[in-house]
């Protein structure tokens, strides 16, 4: 009898964990963004995908997924001059803007006393973005992949847990992850456009136009280093770390990881200096 009661209790508790909610079009936002603008995208857990669009209208579709009764995910945006922030927020706290902060869904302190918690768990908020040419992208997630296609005015991308993939890009590129691969393909670079790619656990790969010149730094601790470009190097070097020069430009090209391979490859892009619509430094 006791065994049956215990089994019923376990079943009840399991049922109270709540069902999974999946809303694919939870947020729609669009605005005019002239060339030279920067669109900042933020989410704490979730994927960010950016694709290019004709015209000058940028649009963001937010999707969300959570487990439990309450929907604690909402989306927010802030405009400040040419900078626009679109943020996925969880819980009641948090802030969208230059000082983005997410409360990570922490609800009332009374929740800790509730056997049947009302707050949501396993929250994910993803952003699917279309941006016009000439708008710079600054995308950041804590846990989630960042994928950026065909942006022409520079990219900043960062995540802690997840891969970063950038292709068809032009302009300066800055991409940082901790746990995840960083893979970048650049069609064209302005004369001063730098490339900075970093991760800790994962490979780093950059395909850049064959005519690119610059001061190159390739480094890993556990992994191999490969370059399609003849690097002129002197000073300290090893099979895991090298500083070298392609041509005469002092533009920095830095690819670094700790655990993983590093590759600097030639892309089939346009000649240097023909591509970017606007120059600038990616901002986090």
């Amino acid at each position, binding site marked *: 009898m006791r065994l049956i009661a215990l089994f019923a209790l376990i079943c009840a508790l399991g049922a109270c964990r709540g069902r999974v909610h999946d809303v694919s079009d939870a947020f729609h936002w669009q605005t005019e963004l002239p060339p030279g603008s920067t669109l900042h995208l933020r989410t704490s857990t979730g994927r960010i995908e950016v694709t290019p669009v004709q015209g000058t209208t940028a649009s963001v579709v937010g999707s969300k997924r959570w487990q439990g009764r309450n929907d604690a995910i909402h989306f927010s945006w802030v405009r400040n001059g040419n900078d626009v922030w679109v943020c996925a927020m969880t819980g009641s706290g948090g802030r969208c803007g230059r000082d983005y902060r997410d409360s990570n869904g922490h609800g009332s302190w009374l929740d800790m006393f509730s056997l049947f918690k009302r707050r949501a768990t396993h929250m994910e908020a993803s952003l699917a973005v279309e941006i016009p040419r000439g708008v710079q992208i600054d995308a950041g997630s804590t846990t989630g992949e960042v994928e950026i296609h065909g942006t022409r005015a520079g990219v900043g991308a960062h995540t802690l847990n997840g891969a970063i993939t950038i292709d068809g890009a032009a302009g300066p590129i800055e991409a940082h992850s901790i746990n995840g691969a960083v893979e970048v393909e650049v069609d064209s670079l302005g004369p001063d456009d730098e490339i900075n790619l970093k991760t800790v656990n994962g490979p780093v790969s950059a395909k850049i136009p064959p005519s690119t010149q610059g001061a190159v730094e390739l480094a890993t601790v556990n992994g191999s280093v490969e370059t*399609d470009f003849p*690097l*002129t*190097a*002197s000073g300290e*070097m090893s099979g895991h770390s*090298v500083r070298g020069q392609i041509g005469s430009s002092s533009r920095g090209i830095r690819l670094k990881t700790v655990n993983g391979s590093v590759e600097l490859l030639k892309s089939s892009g346009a000649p240097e200096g023909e591509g970017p619509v606007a120059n600038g430094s990616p901002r986090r």
Partner: protein
Amino acid sequence: MRCCVLALLAASLGAAPLQAQRQTEDNAFTWSGRIPSGHWIRVRNLSGDIDVTASNSDRVEVTATKRWRRSDPQSVRIEVRKSGPNDDDVVICALWNDRTDCDEHGSESHNVHNNDVSVQFRVSIPRGVKVGVSTVNGAIGVEGATSEVEASTVNGEVEASSSGGPVNASTVNGSVTARMGRFDNDEDLNFSTVNGTVVVEFTGDLDADVELSTVNGGFHTDYPVTLNGRLDPRHLRAKLGRGGRRIRLSTVNGNVELRRRG
């Protein structure tokens, strides 16, 4: 009973002979002679350092100091042999018992264990004389040479410099440091060890195919090299200038450095 045993043991220890004192015989061997410029003075040793310095005279001077604790210093004899065309080259060999032999190519030893005699050679050379020195247990230092130098040991460091060159140097346990001035020939050069760093310094521009290798260590080169493809963590091959002579710097445990002066 135990007391008796302990007392006996103490007495026997006290009666044991003291550890043999280290003894030295300076100038156990001296040799002085003229060697024409472009010819060799070679010194072959098995146990003990060899130091070579520049001479103020036109003669090659060689002195040897013997050191020992228990073995008979007379068991090591030092011989002078002539070699090469017109006997212009000189080989000086330290020979342990009758079981070692040597010539201009090197020395051979058979069972010289339990002989603690070591010989330290000091050699001074005039300009233009080539130097070939080798030992097994001992360091080698060559300073003030103006022509070709060959230096090798097994257990010990090698530090060799010549205002001309070329220099070849090797050891197994120890570092190799070599410095060269400008020289004309295009022979291959080798600098190697197993446990230790290899540092080689050339003067001015260099036309050569260089190969640097290490297993546990890194590379340094003052000469710009062009790297392409997958970098090999253990080997660095590059063409310097127009290429030409092969220069190999290798170790297993240690860094490899290719330095440039001037």
